[in-house]
C-alpha cells in the first residue's frame, strides 16, 4: 500500500491504555487471544475490554487467558473459566440462554414485524390507488 498525497502527521492525546507486547509464538493462538480478550469485559474499568484496559486485574486476566491457550483449552472452556468466577457480566457478547432469548431474537422479530406492517400498509394504499386511479395521475410526479 503506497502512501499518497496527504502526508500529514498528527499528534494527539489519549489516556494511557494497555499495550501488551507479549505475544504468543503460535499466530493462530495469538489470533484467538486477541479475539477472546476483545470480547471480555474488564471488571475494574468496566467500559473497556481486558485487551485495552490498563487495570492490574485486566493484565492478570490476560495472563490467565494466555496460559489457558497454551495449555490447549478451547474458547468455550476459557469463557467458562471466567464466567464461573465473575458471572456473565464478563462477556461482552451476551450468552444465548432462556433469559436472553428476547435479545437474540429481536433482530429477526423486528425485521419480520416491520416488513409485515409495511407490507400491510402498502397493500391497503395500493387498493386505494386502484379504486381511484385518476387521483394518481392528477399532478406531475417528480421526486
Amino acid at each position: 500500500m503506497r502512501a499518497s498525497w496527504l502526508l500529514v502527521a498528527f499528534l494527539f492525546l489519549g489516556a494511557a491504555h494497555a499495550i501488551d507486547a507479549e505475544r504468543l509464538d503460535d499466530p493462530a493462538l495469538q489470533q484467538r487471544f486477541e479475539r477472546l480478550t476483545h470480547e471480555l469485559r474488564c471488571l475494574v474499568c468496566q467500559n473497556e475490554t481486558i485487551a485495552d484496559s490498563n487495570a492490574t486485574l485486566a493484565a492478570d486476566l490476560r495472563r490467565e487467558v494466555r496460559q489457558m491457550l497454551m495449555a490447549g483449552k478451547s474458547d468455550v472452556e476459557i469463557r467458562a473459566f471466567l464466567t464461573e468466577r465473575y458471572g456473565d457480566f464478563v462477556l461482552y457478547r451476551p450468552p444465548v440462554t432462556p433469559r436472553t432469548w428476547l435479545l437474540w431474537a429481536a433482530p429477526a422479530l423486528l425485521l419480520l414485524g416491520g416488513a409485515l406492517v409495511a407490507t400491510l400498509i402498502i397493500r391497503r394504499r395500493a387498493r386505494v390507488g386502484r379504486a381511484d386511479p385518476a387521483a394518481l395521475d392528477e399532478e406531475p410526479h417528480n421526486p
Partner: protein
Amino acid sequence: MMRAPRFLVPAAAFAVLVGFLIIGLQKDPGEIPSPLLGKSAPDFALESLADPARKVGSTDFTGQPWLLNVWATWCGGCRQEHETLLAITREGSIPMLGLNWRDDRALALQWLSQLGNPYESVAFDPEGEVAIDWGVYGAPETFLIGADGKVLHKQIGPLTPEIWRRDFLPLITPARGET
C-alpha cells in the same frame, strides 16, 4: 374517546420503561454479584505472609464458618475497614483469613504490625491467581464461608459494623451447623 386502542401502545410501552428505570435507579449497575454463592469455596494453598515456609489455605478451617478478607496496602477502603475487622476478631466468634492481594510482602507485614492484625493467618497472593479463582475484582472484599465449606455471602467494599450485623450475623449462627 378511545377510538383505537393501538394508539395507546406507545404510552403503555413508555410506562413500562419508566417502571424499569425507577427500579434501575435503586440498583448499582457496576456491582457484580458473586457466582460462587451457594457453591463450594475454591481450594487454595499459598505461602503465609509472615513465614514463607508455612502454607495457609482453604482447608485450614473446615468444619466451622470462617471469613476470607481480601486486602492490600495500596487499598484505601482496606484502611477504612480495618477497625471493624479488629472488632470482629476481638469478639472471637469466627476466624478470619486474610488474602494479601498483589502486594509487597514487607509493606504488608509493616501495615499489620502498625495497625494491628485481625487475621488468624494471612495468605500471600502476589500474582493474584487465587484472587481470580475467588472472582475478586477489587479490594476490600470479604467472603463468609459456612461450616460445610460453601460460600454464603460476599461483601464488596469496606465492612462496617452495620453491614456486619445486617448481612453477616444472621448467616453465621445457622452456619455453625453443630452446637
